[in-house]
C-alpha cells in the first residue's frame, strides 16, 4: 500500500512510497543510456514492421521474401556451377575421366546426387542390399565401363521407358517347365560352378537340364551375358543370396529387378557425373 513518498537523505532520490517492515524502496531512475537504448529499440521495431512483412496481409515496403531469397540463392549457385556443368555436358565420359579437374568435379557432384537419389536402394557408398546390386564390387549385370554405367543410369532397367534395358527370365517352376526335383538338381549344378554344391550326384543330374534350359543366357560355364543382363553364376557374388534355397527360388519364380530411368529427371551433365562417380566406387572397368 503506497504511503508517503519521501526523499532519501543519502542518495537524494525519492522512495516509491512502498514500505515493508520498515524497509523502504528507492525509486532510482534507470540509467539514461539504458532508457535511450530502449527508446531506440522501439523506433527500430516500428521501422522494422514497416520495412518487412510483419502482418499476414502486409508485405513490407522492402518487398522482402524468404522464398524469393532462397530461389535467388539457388539461381546463384546454379550460375556458379554453370560453366563447369557446361564443360561436363560437352565432354565425353572418357574426356572427363582424363581431365583431373573435370574428374574431381564430377565425382564430388555425383556423390551428392547419388546420396539424394540412389542411396535409398543401393546404399550410401553403393554398398547395395539383397536384390539391389552392390555398385562398389567388380560384378556388373549390364556392363561396368563408363558407357554401360551411363546407359543404365539414363534409361534404367525393366521400366516403362522405351530405351530401358530389358530381359525376362522364365519362371521354370511356376510355369511348370521343370519339376521341383529337377529345379533342385539344377540348383545343385549352379552351385557347383562356384564350388558350393553339397550333392555331387544331384549336380551331375542337373548338368543336362542346365544345358537345355539355361545356357542360352547364362553361358556354358555360367559366365553370364551382359547383353541381356543375365548374371554370372560362376562367381562368388549373389544378388539374391547364394544359398540353395535362394537359388531354387530364383529358378522357380525368376527374378526381375527394376530401376527407374533418370534421363528425364536429371540433365545430361548430372547423369554423366553420376556415371563417373559410380564408376569410381572401385569396381569400374
Amino acid at each position, binding site marked *: 500500500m503506497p504511503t508517503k513518498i519521501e526523499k532519501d537523505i*543519502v*542518495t537524494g532520490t525519492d522512495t516509491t512510497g512502498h514500505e515493508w517492515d520498515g524497509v523502504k524502496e528507492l525509486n*532510482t531512475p534507470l540509467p539514461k543510456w539504458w532508457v535511450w537504448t530502449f527508446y531506440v529499440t522501439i523506433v527500430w521495431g516500428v521501422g522494422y514492421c514497416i520495412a518487412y512483412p510483419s502482418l499476414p496481409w502486409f508485405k513490407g515496403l522492402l518487398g522482402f521474401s524468404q522464398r524469393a531469397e532462397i530461389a535467388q540463392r539457388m539461381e546463384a549457385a546454379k550460375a556458379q556451377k554453370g560453366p563447369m556443368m557446361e564443360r561436363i555436358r560437352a565432354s565425353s565420359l572418357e574426356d572427363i*575421366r582424363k581431365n*583431373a579437374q573435370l*574428374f574431381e568435379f564430377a565425382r564430388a557432384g555425383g556423390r551428392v546426387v547419388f546420396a539424394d537419389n540412389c542411396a535409398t536402394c543401393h*546404399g*550410401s*557408398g*553403393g*554398398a*547395395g542390399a539383397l536384390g539391389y546390386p*552392390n555398385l*562398389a*564390387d*567388380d*560384378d556388373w549385370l549390364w556392363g561396368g565401363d563408363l558407357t554401360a554405367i551411363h546407359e543404365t543410369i539414363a534409361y534404367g532397367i525393366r521400366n516403362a521407358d522405351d530405351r530401358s534395358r530389358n530381359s525376362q527370365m522364365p519362371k521354370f517352376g511356376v510355369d511348370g517347365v521343370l519339376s521341383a526335383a529337377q529345379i533342385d538338381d539344377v540348383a545343385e549344378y549352379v552351385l557347383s560352378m562356384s564350388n558350393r554344391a553339397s550333392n555331387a550326384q544331384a549336380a551331375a543330374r542337373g548338368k543336362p537340364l542346365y544345358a537345355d534350359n539355361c545356357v542360352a543366357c547364362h553361358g556354358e560355364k555360367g559366365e553370364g551375358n551382359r547383353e541381356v543382363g543375365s548374371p*554370372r553364376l560362376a*562367381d*562368388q*557374388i549373389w544378388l539374391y543370396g547364394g544359398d540353395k534355397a535362394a537359388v531354387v527360388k530364383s529358378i522357380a519364380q525368376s527374378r526381375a529387378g527394376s530401376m527407374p530411368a533418370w534421363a528425364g529427371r536429371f540433365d545430361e551433365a548430372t547423369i554423366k557425373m553420376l556415371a563417373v562417380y559410380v564408376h*569410381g*566406387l*572401385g*569396381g*569400374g572397368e
Partner: protein
Amino acid sequence: MHGVLETKGGKDGSRTEPVSEVQLYADRVRVYPKKISGNFRRLKWAILSVCLGLYYLAPWIRWDRGPNAPDQALLIDMTGRRGYFFAIEIWPQEVYYIAGLLMLGAFGLFLATTLAGRVWCGYACPQTVWTDLFMQVERLIEGDRNQRMRLDAQPLSLAKAAKKTLKHAAWLFISFATGGAWILYFGDAPAMVRDVFSGEASVEAYAFIALLTSTTYLLAGWAREQVCTYMCPWPRFQAAMLDGESLVVSYRKHRGEKRGSYKKGASWEGRGDCVDCKLCVAVCPTGIDIRDGLQLECIGCGLCVDACASIMDRVGRPRGLIAFDTERHLRAVEAKTPYRYRLLRPRVLLYSALVVFIALVMGVSLFFRSTAEVHVLRERSPLFVALSDGSIRNDFTVKILNKARDPLDFALEIEGLPAPTIKVIGLEDAGPRPFLPTPGDGVATYRVTLAVPAAALKGEQTEIRFALRASERTKPIKRDTVFLGPRK
C-alpha cells in the same frame, strides 16, 4: 574508493554521523591526469612508441616467399586459410600454435605480475597505450590538468567548441588509423590501403575498420580508466597473483607520516616526509590516492613515483617516498626486523618453468614439423567389398597435405597385407607402389582400393599401415588403419 564504508567528515576533522549505506553505484568522477616527467614516464613513452610502432608498421614488412606466395611478413590469409609469420607458415589445423602463444602470454603475464605487480596494465596493455596517446593529444590541444578542468567548467564558447572539435577529430583520426591498420594484417597491405580509399575493399574490411575505429575512440577517449576498473577481470584477481614479495607501487607510510604541508626552511623533526601536495593523485591516470595503499584501480604505471620524486627533489628530501616496493619490506621496516628481497619464490620458479617449457615445446615442434601431412580414412559404407573371385577389397580415402611450395609425388606402400592389389581411382595402372602426385602448397585426395584373396586374411580385422614418402631420402609418413573382411 567505491563500495567502501564512507564517513562524512566535517571540515574540522570532527566526525559527523556515519553513513551506513554501502554505495553500490557511484557516479563517475572525471580524472584529469596532470603531466609529469621522470624515469617511469620516459619508460612508458619508450614502450608506447615500440608497441604502437610495431602495430602500425608491422604489416608493411615484406618477406620474400618466392612466386605464388604472399610477400608480407605478417599475414593472416582468411580465404587462403594460411597464417604467415616470417618464415613460418601455419595451416588451419595447426592452430594449436596459437593456443601455445596464448598460454605463453598468460603465463608471461602471471610471471610479470608476480614479480612487479600490474606492470602489464601500466605499460603494455593496449587500453593503457592508446589511452596514454589520447591523453597526450588532449593535453596538446586543451592544455594540462588545470586548464582542462577550467575549460570543462566553462559555458560553451566558440573557443571551447573549437578545441573540443579539434580534439575529437584528432582522436577519430588516430582511431581510424588503428582500425585501418588492423585489417592490413589480413591482406596485402599496399593493395588493402588502395582498395579502402578507392571504395573497393570488401564489406567485412569496412565493417572491421568501423568496429575498431569506434571501440578505439570510445575506450581510449571516453571510457579510459572505467575499462580497467569495471570491464577488465584482471584487477579482480590481482590479489591472487601477488604475494608479499611482489614489487608494487607503494607509499612508504613509515617515512611519509605524519603528513602535512611544509614551509621552506622549516624543520623536518617530528613529522613525515609527505608534504601532502597531492601531486601523486593529480598525475594518476585512474585518479586514486596511492597513500591509501594498494587498490583495485592501481594499474602500476609508477607515474606517482615520478611525481613524488620531483617533489622530494624540490624540498630536499631523498627520493623513494613512493616507490616499487614489497609488502613484506614495508612491514619489516615498521617492525624494525631485518629483511632481504626474495626474487626466487616457488611461484616465480613455476611460472618461469612453464614459460620455458611451453616455448621449448613450441620451438621444437616447429623446428621438426613435417612439411607434409597424411590422413587415411576408411570407407565405412560398405565396410568391405566381396569381389567376384572371392577376394576382399577395402577402400580408403588418402588425403595428402603438401605444405612445401613445390609439387611432390608421394610413393605409397602398404604394410601388413600380403601382396595386395592396389588401385587408385583416377590413376591408370598404379602398380604395386603407386605414386600420388600432390600439388605444391595444396591438398590431394585419392581413393585407394586394396584387394587381397579371402584366404590371406587371418581374421575379421587385420592391422595395416599406409606408408608415404616424398623421396627415398625422407622418412616415410605412416598411418595405421585396419583392413576388414567377413567373419571367419
